[in-house]
């Protein structure tokens, strides 16, 4: 997030796109509700009539996967109606002329044909955001889990730069991170293109720095992403170490993922449970989990916070940092003589320009938001206040692309996936917490009541959901949250593995899977058939 969580109470116009915030980030949503109670205008763009949409002053029910078209048309209206912040654009951006040329043809009427949102509503949304004193954008996986995920984010950036809604209280472009420490994993260099602190691996200066620090020659070439690596299992990729991630259930195209992991010569998994992924491993290492280790998480507003051990891990389970240290020592890798997580964290901070101003003891307060470039620096709750790190903000020229697969005669319905409040990701954790089983006993397929009738389904009855990759059975729930022609299912439950269906494409830049969109066929399952399906 460019802005701190507490800024969520400050905007006068809020634009939420592809974020089911009341379910995925409930405590953050509470702050937005406060802003709305104080008079802020809320615009929500989402294919599903989620709870946030019910709260909205303006709801834009766009077709799944059509975000770019909506955002292009909003940019068009902002330019057409003279709502560009000329002063900001002149002082802090570049490329506005090319952008204005580019968006001239992307009218709201054009976007209506793609998104299904009335042109007049697109205009209203653009005017509201364009005229805002403090306009803030919030988004989540609904925007990034598409083949055009990067296009969507850059289209949002264009709106921000055109209107100068950045670098001030209550503004900004604010991705809400899903998992508790996804931000920290990226910060720490667990990505194929950057060392710790987002230092590019392609930069020879960084290569020299880490060659010295890690005691061996570093490659200048980016690594493959996880998606590409799974594709290459059994060929270029022969051995994998996986930490605490139920790769099999959470990745799209599950049949492919299982095959990939099975074709490895050597798979080592660290986890707290014998997950579906761990069951395929050659070696399973029992890890200490939440409340059993000391360390740090970095949250969605870049705040670094200490987590503490409150109980002993069960049996012989050990903290991940210890396990990796021991493994590295057995392999003779130098530089792994850590005796505490404190030693690890202090090395991380000293190697990272954005954590350079803190260490284990300073981080104790939980008051620091990165970048903290030097000791004595107070941290940076709000990014881009005085300028952009890389000079001027660049407008990007983005076009609209269809999803990797579109509906057809065989697969006439859009399936979109997501998460529910009570369940968390693949359920290896909450699936075992009794309180949560009670709240959400089984997964359902959300279908508009008129579609339930039209397709011969029954509310509470079983349906078979098929895509080009496979099929699953699931209980139907009639609800007006789903629009006509679009159904929703969460990916939380292993007994309804929707990721057998999904996985039709990836964003060419980030290779984030297109989990949000998948054309399917929905058929009623009659009683006699139910006994036969595996």
């Amino acid at each position, binding site marked *: 997030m460019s802005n701190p969580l507490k800024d969520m109470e400050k905007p006068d116009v809020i634009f939420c796109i592809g974020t089911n915030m009341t379910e995925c980030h*409930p*405590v953050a949503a509470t702050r937005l509700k406060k802003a709305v109670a104080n008079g802020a205008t809320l615009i929500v763009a989402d294919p599903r009539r989620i709870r946030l949409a019910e709260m909205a002053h303006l709801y834009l029910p766009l077709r799944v996967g059509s975000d770019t078209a909506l955002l292009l048309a909003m940019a068009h209206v902002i330019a057409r109606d003279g709502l560009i912040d000329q002063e900001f654009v002149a002082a802090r951006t570049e490329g506005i002329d090319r952008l204005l040329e580019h968006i001239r043809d992307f009218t709201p009427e054009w976007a209506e044909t793609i998104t299904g949102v009335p042109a007049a509503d697109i205009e209203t949304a653009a005017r509201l955001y364009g005229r805002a004193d403090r306009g803030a954008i919030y988004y989540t996986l609904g925007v990034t889990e598409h083949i055009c995920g990067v296009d969507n984010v850059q289209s949002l950036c264009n709106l921000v730069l055109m209107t100068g809604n950045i670098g001030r209280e209550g503004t900004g472009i604010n991705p809400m*991170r*899903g*998992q*508790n*420490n*996804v931000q920290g*994993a990226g910060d*720490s*260099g667990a*990505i194929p293109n950057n*060392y710790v602190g987002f230092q590019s691996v392609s930069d020879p200066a960084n290569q020299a720095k880490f060659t010295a620090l*890690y*005691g*061996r*020659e*570093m490659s200048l070439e980016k*690594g*493959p*992403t*996880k998606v590409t690596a799974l594709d290459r299992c059994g060929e270029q*990729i*022969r051995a994998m*170490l*996986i930490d605490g*991630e139920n790769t099999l259930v*959470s990745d799209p195209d599950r049949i492919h993922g299982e095959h990939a992991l099975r074709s490895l010569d*050597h798979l080592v998994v660290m*986890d707290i449970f014998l997950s579906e992924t761990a069951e395929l*491993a*050659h*070696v399973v*290492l029992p890890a200490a*989990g*939440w*409340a059993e280790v000391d360390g*740090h*998480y970095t*949250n*969605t*507003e870049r705040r670094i*916070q200490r987590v503490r051990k409150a*109980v002993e891990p069960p*049996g012989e389970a050990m*903290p*991940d*940092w210890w396990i*990796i240290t021991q493994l*590295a020592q057995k*392999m003779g890798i*130098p530089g792994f003589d850590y005796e505490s997580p404190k030693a690890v964290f202090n*090395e*991380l901070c000293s190697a990272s320009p954005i954590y350079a101003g803190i260490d284990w003891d300073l981080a104790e307060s939980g*008051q620091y938001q990165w970048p903290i470039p030097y000791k004595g620096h107070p941290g940076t709750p709000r990014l881009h206040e005085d300028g952009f790190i890389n000079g001027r903000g660049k407008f990007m020229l983005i076009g609209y692309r269809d999803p990797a697969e579109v509906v057809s005669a065989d697969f006439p319905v859009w399936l979109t996936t997501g998460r529910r409040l009570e369940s*968390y990701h693949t359920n290896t*954790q*909450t*699936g075992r*917490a009794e309180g949560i089983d009670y709240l959400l006993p089984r997964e359902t397929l959300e279908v508009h009541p008129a579609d339930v009738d039209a397709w011969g389904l029954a509310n509470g009855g079983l349906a078979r959901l098929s895509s080009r990759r496979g099929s699953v059975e699931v209980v139907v729930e009639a609800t007006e949250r789903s629009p006509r022609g679009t159904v929703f299912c969460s990916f939380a439950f292993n007994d309804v593995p929707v990721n057998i269906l999904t996985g039709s494409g990836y964003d060419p830049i980030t290779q984030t899977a297109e989990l949000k969109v998948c054309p399917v066929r929905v058929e009623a399952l009659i009683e006699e058939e139910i006994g036969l399906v595996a």
Partner: protein
Amino acid sequence: MQNPIPLMEAGITKTRSVCGYCGVGCAVDVMTRDNRIVGIQPAMDGPANEGALCVKGQFAYDFVHHPDRLTRPLVRRDDGKLHPTTWDEALQIAADGFLRAAAEHGEASVYGIASGRTPSEADYLMQKWVRAGFGTHNIDNCSRA
């Protein structure tokens, strides 16, 4: 307000930590007794949550003490099944397999996937293990979720 005295009399200890479920990062007090978690309280002074907590953060901690937790290292033997073993043997087999893959198929044949749930210390060491061990950037995490 909580009165700390009765808690201490009941043998309950409070440990300040952060919820492990989503990116908001709500600060919590983990209440424990006899090495078991007995409750979670929101931290009133938590910078991200200021005393708020959602249903996940409040109640979904039973998994910590679930009987299905892994308690011993496991290795796959000739019968194709996973069997419990010592840390020393499990780590040795793990290490040998990576060294063999690197020797036979090159250092780029080894890949690491870090977690978006573990503390940053684990993520940092996962990437260092790949980079310092093999000189490649064959590392990613589950940034998707």
